[in-house]
């Protein structure tokens, strides 16, 4: 239990935990104090001086609420004449050199400087001298433009690059009134996280070059969603214009996952939703070209061909491959469609680790799965081991979480990788192994742990770091470039299990796509489980497969071989649900237009098994529909129709089928998503 102290602000008295900053205490009680430099995630600096308040008994006059911790019996006034005069003075200073080009400023309309000047500043400026001028805009890097005239020197961007991303690229140059924001020797600001400084900037000084002058904030509406690009599952606000155009992604703070940061890939890769190249109607192949047809005709064609194939050579000559970018609802209906409607057990998701998994590989996966830890448990870990994993490449925002765990919570980072990775510099200990030999490394870690022989450096790392919990292990599920994938996975699983007998262990995998874990949980796997592969069956040399349903997976691109194209072309029936005419879709007999993540209601399961909801934010282009709706409609043309009308109904069936999801219902998924009750202690 934390110590509580009692404070009085503007006549209101309440209790707050000791050590809370006065500004945070006031905010929690709904008392508004203007602020620029302070940011909840960045901490106080006291640079802008707008949060002045008067504290009784403090002789030095108005003081900054953002940097003063509360004390018992503190009596504060945020509205006294002294405070109001001081704040007016500060705003007069801030606006003295501000160009007031609000009509063309991208921030105009959602600008804290506008809002707070209006609320706390003087109506008119007393400054009549010519304003300071700078070249504008300055190109700071590939993504960011800087306008020094607008800058109020709040240090937020500087602190972000120094404390959060730790690349220290944006700095303050010169001193006193000549101080400006810039980069050392005008080097370009290149970062995976550059977009965050635009969102942090409380004025329009840092703007996105991609979005410059594209919109005005008052046209936009923000809708909550989840990033579709990786399995970390950062929360988003999707800004839309006129109800049908996706304009930008903003971060939406989820302290359990993204901690309010986004990577640039997540932030800037949104144009596909409104792309004019989207498939907007069902298309049938006629000779070498596609013709657009009504749904009815496409379904009749597919149902006819499918019936012929099933009748002639049995249902197992039909395979289904779905992308783990689809929602749980899509994947579940897909599996049911293949199993119940077609009668085939050959369903799979792709990409996934293509392991030659025998029984032990599957056991290893189950072990790792059962140790699945939450992302926020990284903050409590004593040691974090990156075992052949590079989060900066795969799930970039995890890099920021790891930096935070090390800097703020004293976690010890151990990087075990064959290459240098961006987080190597943050590591307390480091082990390397020859490229591809992850299995050997995991074996020697295991052997050292269980008292067997191991190289000295491995032994030292194990003795120093793995004997004290909690330990968090981050491993790369894709095992790119690893020579013995099966062996590596088994070794990692054994290591985790052996560690788990000694200390408390959590495992976070780096997965392929936004819903890889969902695809696993739903069991979108062929007969033979992990060991089997519907993709191999489809593309194998003496393949018997005659028909295939491919949902969003781009086989022709991801398995580049002339054989792939030839096999796909030879099929009697290739149905592809896609957003675009991809390499695979071009080989199809029928291309069906699918809905993107912003156009359907559904759920994603991220790498910590948090169920998060994506919503239909914009209408689909043309007659495109969600993948599960397409399959339900298609099943009406067979003699075994599926009966789903709403994603809720699908989810209810998922709950019945997948025990781990049974505690979660659509109505109770909060905006920040939820982990299954059975996992929440981890």
């Amino acid at each position: 239990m934390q110590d509580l102290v009692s404070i009085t602000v503007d006549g209101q008295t309440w209790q707050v935990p000791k050590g809370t900053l006065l500004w945070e205490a006031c905010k929690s009680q709904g008392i508004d104090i203007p602020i620029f430099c302070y940011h909840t995630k960045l901490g106080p600096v006291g640079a802008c001086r707008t949060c002045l308040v008067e504290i009784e008994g403090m002789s030095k006059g108005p003081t900054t609420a953002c940097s003063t911790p509360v004390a018992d019996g503190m009596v504060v006034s945020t509205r006294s004449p002294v405070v109001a005069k001081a704040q007016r003075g500060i705003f007069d200073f801030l606006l003295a050199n501000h160009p007031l080009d609000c009509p063309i400023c991208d921030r105009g309309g959602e600008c804290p400087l506008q809002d707070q000047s209006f609320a706390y500043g003087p109506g008119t400026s007393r400054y009549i001298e010519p304003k300071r001028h700078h070249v504008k805009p300055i190109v700071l890097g590939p993504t960011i433009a800087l306008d020094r005239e607008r800058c109020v020197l709040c240090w937020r961007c500087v602190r972000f690059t120094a404390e959060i991303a730790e690349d220290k690229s944006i700095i303050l140059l010169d001193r006193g009134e000549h101080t400006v924001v810039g980069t050392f020797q005008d080097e370009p600001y290149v970062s995976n996280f550059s977009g965050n400084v635009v969102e942090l900037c409380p004025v329009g000084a840092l703007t996105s070059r991609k979005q410059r002058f594209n919109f005005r904030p008052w046209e936009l509406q923000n809708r909550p969603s989840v990033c579709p690009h990786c399995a970390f599952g950062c929360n988003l606000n999707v800004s839309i214009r006129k109800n049908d155009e996706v304009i930008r992604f903003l971060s939406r703070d989820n302290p359990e996952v993204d901690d309010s940061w986004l990577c640039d890939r997540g932030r800037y890769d949104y144009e596909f939703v409104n792309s004019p190249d989207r498939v907007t109607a069902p298309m049938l192949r006629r000779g070498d070209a596609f013709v657009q047809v009504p749904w009815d005709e496409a379904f009749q064609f597919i149902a006819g061909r499918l019936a012929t194939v099933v009748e002639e050579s049995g249902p197992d000559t039909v395979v289904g491959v779905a992308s783990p970018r689809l929602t749980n609802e899509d994947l579940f209906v897909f599996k049911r469609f293949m199993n119940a409607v077609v009668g085939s057990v050959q369903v799979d998701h792709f990409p996934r680790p293509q392991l030659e998994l025998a029984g032990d590989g599957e056991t290893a996966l189950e072990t790792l799965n059962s140790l699945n830890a939450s992302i926020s448990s990284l903050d409590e870990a004593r040691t974090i081991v990156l075992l052949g994993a590079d989060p900066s490449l795969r799930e970039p925002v995890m890099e920021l979480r790891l930096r935070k765990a090390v800097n703020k919570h004293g976690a010890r980072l151990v990087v075990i990788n064959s290459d240098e990775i961006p987080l190597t510099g943050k590591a307390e200990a480091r082990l390397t192994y020859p490229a591809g030999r992850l299995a050997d490394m995991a074996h020697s870690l295991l052997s050292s742990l269980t008292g067997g022989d191991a190289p000295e450096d491995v032994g030292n790392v194990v003795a120093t770091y793995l004997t004290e919990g909690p330990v968090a292990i981050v491993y790369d599920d894709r095992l790119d470039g690893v020579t013995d994938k099966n062996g590596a996975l088994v070794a990692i699983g054994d290591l985790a299990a052996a560690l788990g007998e000694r200390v408390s262990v959590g495992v976070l995998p780096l997965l392929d796509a936004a819903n890889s874990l969902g695809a696993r949980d739903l069991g979108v796997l062929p007969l033979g489980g992990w060991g089997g592969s519907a993709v191999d069956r489809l593309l194998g040399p003496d393949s018997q497969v005659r028909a295939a349903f491919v949902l969003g997976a781009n086989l022709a691109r991801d398995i580049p071989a002339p054989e792939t194209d030839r096999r796909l072309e030879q099929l009697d029936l290739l149905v592809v649900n896609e957003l675009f005419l991809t390499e695979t879709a071009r080989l199809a007999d029928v291309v069906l237009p699918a809905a993107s993540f912003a156009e359907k209601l559904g759920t994603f399961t991220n790498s910590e098994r948090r169920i998060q909801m994506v919503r239909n934010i914009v209408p689909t282009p043309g007659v495109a529909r969600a993948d599960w709706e397409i399959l339900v409609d298609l099943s009406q043309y067979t003699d075994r129709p599926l009966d789903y009308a709403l994603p809720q109904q699908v989810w209810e069936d998922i709950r019945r089928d997948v025990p781990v999801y049974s505690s979660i219902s659509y109505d109770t998924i909060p905006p920040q998503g939820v982990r299954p009750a059975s996992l929440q202690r981890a």
Partner: protein
Amino acid sequence: MGVTLKNLFRPPTTVRYPEQRRKLPERTRGRHVLHRYENGLERCIGCYLCAGACPADCIYIEAEENTPENRVSAGERYARVYEIDELRCIFCGFCEEACPTGAITLEPILDLSDYQRGPLIYTKEMLLEPPRTFSPARSSAGHASE
């Protein structure tokens, strides 16, 4: 009879439109005109404030950045697309009030008619006054022929 004779010799109150036009009050709110600075640059900076103020939502704008090779307006930003649907416009003049650069004004131009709806969506080229050397402030631009 007296009334008849009196009215018989009064001059007509109508004019022969369109050959003749009545002089309208200077502040008549008719069709919009986009103005230029004396150096020929457009006043409009594509800030969307007129579109934001418009109660009929009849103004559509897409903005873009000026480049040294293609300088259209005085600031950093200009309107690449500027369209007003004159059929929707209620001629309230809010756009004129909202404009920070005096780029848009409602002028005494009332002949807005066509056989189709399409041509009544005025594009930037149709709204923009031609480049000229004299002051672009409110002038005789709207008074086509008296």
